[in-house]
């Protein structure tokens, strides 16, 4: 009981490292992913792969920060290349997913 009290007191005074907060988000998101993905119908596993591909290209936000910074020479160039690669994926991934999904039709 004493220990618990000590922990609570400690928690109230200090703020957690931002890393720990991010880690919490990360772990909870893995659980969300687990449940959401198991609910995906096997017939749509190919579109699932193409759409996860598209959304993982949200990594473009990192590329934008590098490319749009005021200074940075080589870092800016690397950022621009990363923007182009991620854009192939974003546009290509969503477009091909939409194209596949539009083919799935019910019996007339």
């Amino acid at each position, binding site marked *: 009981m004493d220990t618990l009290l000590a922990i609570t007191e400690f928690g109230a005074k200090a703020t957690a490292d931002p890393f720990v907060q991010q880690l919490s*988000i*990360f772990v909870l*998101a*893995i659980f*969300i992913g*687990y449940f959401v*993905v198991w609910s*995906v*119908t*096997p*017939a*749509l*596993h*190919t*579109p*699932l792969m193409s*759409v*996860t*591909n*598209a959304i*993982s*290209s949200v*990594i*473009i*936000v*990192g*590329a*934008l*920060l*590098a*490319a*749009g*910074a*005021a*200074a940075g*020479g080589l*870092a*800016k160039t690397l*950022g*621009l290349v*990363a*923007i*182009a*690669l*991620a*854009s*192939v*994926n*974003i*546009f*290509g991934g*969503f*477009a*091909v997913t*939409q194209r*596949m999904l539009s*083919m*799935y*039709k019910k*019996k007339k």
Partner: protein
Amino acid sequence: MSAFQANATAIAYLISAVLFIFALRGLSSPESSRKGNLLGILGMVIAIAATVLSPQIVTYGWIIGAVALGGGIGYVIARRIAMTAMPQLVAGFHSLVGMAAVLVAAAALLNPSAFGITDGLGRIFLASRIEMSLGAAIGAITFSGSVIAFLKLQGLMSGTPILLPARHPINLALAIAIIGLIVAFGLSEGAAAGGGNLLWWLIAASFVIGFLLIIPIGGADMPVVISMLNSYSGWAAAGIGFTLQNSALIVTGALVGSSGAILSYIMCKGMNRSFISVIAGGFGGDGGGGPTGQRPERPHKKGSADDAAFILKNAGSVIVVPGYGMAVAQAQHAVRELADRLKSAGVSVKYAIHPVAGRMPGHMNVLLAEANVPYDEVFELDDINNAFSTADVAFVIGANDVTNPVAKTDPDSPIYGMPILDVERAKTILFVKRSLSPGYAGVDNELFYRDNVMMLFGDAKKMTEAIIKTLD
């Protein structure tokens, strides 16, 4: 950046993460999936807008150019690609995510202040060093591994496993080196203190191990490989997300990482093989693989398109079992046409899909959807297996191992324990196949020699078209 701006940006990222969850959630049924995809696009627009509007970004010209260039290429590819080429397209896209992660990590090392990850002396934070090195390493493995998967799937590289003599010790040494480099880079103080070279070596070692991990894996194990690389691309994105302290990227990375992991698990289960044994590689090649040697030819019944048409026409119910051979021959449209003819003659037609049919998860479903087969006529293994016992005809086109009853009867067989489609219980079985050669597992299929089985030798598309012609 004011506190208000910082909060607004963070909330925008949260919204896009939620929209991405809805995009995946939509895939629980074909009806909701199209709306889900649009929500995913909206999430991406919000994430990009929030970043571009933040005050750290001061130049726009080149950014717009890069987006237009990449986006244009991606869009054109997406419109033109054949559905049969979907596995290699997805592998190619994975490689781009991996490379983007490597480039972002490299840019963060070279200009850390743009990412807000430095202390007062320009040194990169310890946590950021670990996160960016993890993101870069996983990204590099994803890149080179996906490039090899792409080359194999595209047929630019043989699907037969390439086995280096000392591959396990080499891979182990590389893995230890990679872990050592991550630790060393973490202990260093980043580029400002001369630790930068460690990251370049780390990226180089990761490229090599990604390459070495995939070359020994055979073509038919590609469904596992492609799912695994899907998962890696997610973990790489999450690693970069930690570096950028960006919740949208962390959540997305976690979603994609777990999605790929679940798909890998489903694919391994569909083959009754452990993940480790797939990764260890060396199993099977394309088509004829395995130590077949010269087998004596056993008696089997060979049929013509006429015979097949007669049997199909007089059946009450037919179950079509498509496999990779149908994809290779681009026979899905012909199969659907055949099904249409049979249906108009009063025959009931259904499709049975094995989890590992094709070269990626759900591959057969997409091909059948492309050929306008209604998705409610297409069934997964568990849902249709009992129906074979009441079916008049099982029409197996381009599939082999997934129908082999030896998986249930012979504990010594390499495919023992693999769930199979019970085509053997149908009254008559038609096999459309190029030859009697065994499947990728190198196992002879007992079914070929049974009395109620007719072999239709030839190209899947040509044979199906010939059957249609005789039906007229």
